[in-house]
């Protein structure tokens, strides 16, 4: 028992193996922890390689793992090259200004112009991440208080529930034209703080990722046990204290379940929205490569697919870590 407290679960079989504690069991455990996932991935790569070779497309054979890996390297190299070009661009402007100043100390330095190169794959990842987090944050800020209100009031719940049920299954692709037109009409400014495309993406993500958090928060609030509500009554907590000290903490596990689902939805929706609306981000990258149709395009799209999956996974793990840290109900979190 002492061991399990001091070492993380992942390392435990190793430690036990070193101690000679039932080596058979430990090896079995290690095989399941590490061996089986590696086996699964290896099998997948084999199927991919052989399967891809069978498919002839207009752009050549479907790329296998090796070609995709090569394209990942290319994308990195392009990013580095683009950065160097940008660096050099700014360098030149500074030098020119310095030169001008040396010739005539009274000359005003020319303003530095921004670099307008094509965004690289990594720039698109950054854009997508910023957009998804903005949309997700906006959705959470709306969904959590609304969910609490719905959960607390049966009347409000009856009023809002039909709307939730109708809007919940709407695909982002259906929202997008509406959001685009409305944003174009409403969000008019000569010097906008945010790009229109960003606003459209954020709003679409928000509209689609609102629902899981809203519903789970409401369910969490309604399932606060009658006994805890009675405790609150006996203590004569005010409405605000009741919400803050009883309802909110009691529903934290459910709120987090909702937030995790919402973040997953948000990421999926964002890629679709970017693709359809040509808004900067990973979705646009995929679409551009599709339109480009070079012999490298398929490989690059596959890199994007894998990266999208990987980022989705990492986002989910981050939410899980946050949940573990914040939530009191450690039993509710399994995977």
């Amino acid at each position, binding site marked *: 028992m002492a061991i399990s407290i001091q070492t993380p679960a992942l390392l435990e079989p190793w430690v036990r193996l070193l101690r000679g504690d039932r080596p058979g069991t430990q090896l079995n455990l290690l095989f399941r922890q590490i061996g089986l996932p590696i086996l699964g991935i290896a099998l997948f790569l084999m199927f991919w390689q052989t399967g891809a070779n069978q498919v002839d497309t207009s752009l050549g054979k479907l790329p296998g793992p090796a070609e995709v890996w090569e394209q990942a390297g290319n994308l990195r190299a392009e990013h580095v090259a683009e950065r160097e070009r940008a660096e050099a661009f700014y360098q030149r402007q500074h030098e020119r200004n310095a030169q001008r100043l040396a010739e005539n100390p009274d000359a005003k330095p020319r303003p530095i112009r921004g670099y307008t190169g094509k965004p690289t794959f990594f720039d698109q990842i950054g854009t997508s991440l910023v957009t998804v987090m903005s949309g997700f944050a906006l959705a959470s800020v709306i969904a959590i208080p609304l969910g609490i209100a719905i959960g607390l009031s049966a009347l409000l719940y009856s009023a809002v529930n039909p709307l939730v049920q109708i809007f919940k299954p709407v695909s982002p692709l259906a929202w997008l034209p509406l959001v685009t037109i409305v944003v174009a009409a409403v969000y008019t400014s000569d010097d906008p703080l945010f790009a229109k495309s960003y606003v459209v993406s954020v709003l679409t993500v928000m509209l689609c990722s609102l629902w899981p958090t809203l519903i789970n928060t409401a369910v969490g609030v309604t399932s606060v*046990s*009658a*006994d*805890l509500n*009675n*405790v609150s*009554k*006996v*203590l*004569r*907590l005010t409405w605000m204290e009741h919400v803050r*000290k*009883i309802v909110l*903490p*009691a529903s*934290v596990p459910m709120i987090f379940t909702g937030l995790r689902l919402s973040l997953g939805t948000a990421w999926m929706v964002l890629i679709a929205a970017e693709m359809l609306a040509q808004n900067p981000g990973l979705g646009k990258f995929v679409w551009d490569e599709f339109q480009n149709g070079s012999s490298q395009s398929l490989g690059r799209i596959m890199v994007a697919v894998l990266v999208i999956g990987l980022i989705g996974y990492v986002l989910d793990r981050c939410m899980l870590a946050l949940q573990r840290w914040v939530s*009191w*109900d450690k*039993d509710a979190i399994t995977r």
Partner: protein
Amino acid sequence: MTPLLDISGVSIEFKTDNGPFKALDNVNLKIVEGEYVSLIGHSGCGKSTVLNIVAGLLQATTGGVVLDGKEVNEPGPERAVVFQNHSLLPWLSAYQNVELAVKQVFRGRKSRAEMKEWIEHNLHLVHMDHAMHKRPNEISGGMKQRVGIARALAMQPKVLLMDEPFGALDALTRAHLQDSLMEIQRELNNTVIMITHDVDEAVLLSDRIVMMTNGPAATIGEILTVDLERPRHRLELAEDHRYNHFRQEVLRFLYEKQRKVDESPRAPAAPKGQPSGRAGTPAAAAVVTTLHKKNVA
């Protein structure tokens, strides 16, 4: 002596789909300060309903409850409740659970240091000093119930209401808690109303045992005064003929006069809006079975 608590003419009806259901009919009970009263009866007879009306969680349809000259019409900390399943806030430690109550009740009356001392004092009373910073899921069922009692005591209630406080515990733990409770009572001499299914518990702890008839329209059947000297010790009492006499009185009431006939058409299920209505839950059923066994023995 004027009673501290006066329950007079209390009846309550619940609306159900099959028309009104009268759960209690004309319940009258006067309790003086420092008295320990148990309510006993078969499950579903409305013991919890009586307690909830005194707590203010339910409103009587007719009649009312007067505590210390004031009518009861809402819940409040001067009628602290110990719930059957502890109902501690699972995200707070034992200390914080008691603190929530203390801050609420003594806001502006005690300084921060006094509050800390008062919280620790109450946790000490229930022997929870060693685990006061543990959360409910880290302590045993008996310990949770101890914290629940500490929280209620810390509110310094005029009357302490206990809804089957030890019902969910195993027999040994229950005995420990009963002993602790008697020890606390010796010191504080609180006025207590306790609901129980356990005949031994009722006789051991109470000054009076209020036996309720079967519902619907349940009311008080008999009241038994238990004038055994205190302090009471369970081992010595086991041999005491008066103790056994009191036990038999209660058992006779429950199994001869108010025999629960299982074949009879079931009373309507627990009406909506009744807090913690546990009539017919497996836990309650299990306790009734134990009663039957004891009776046979």
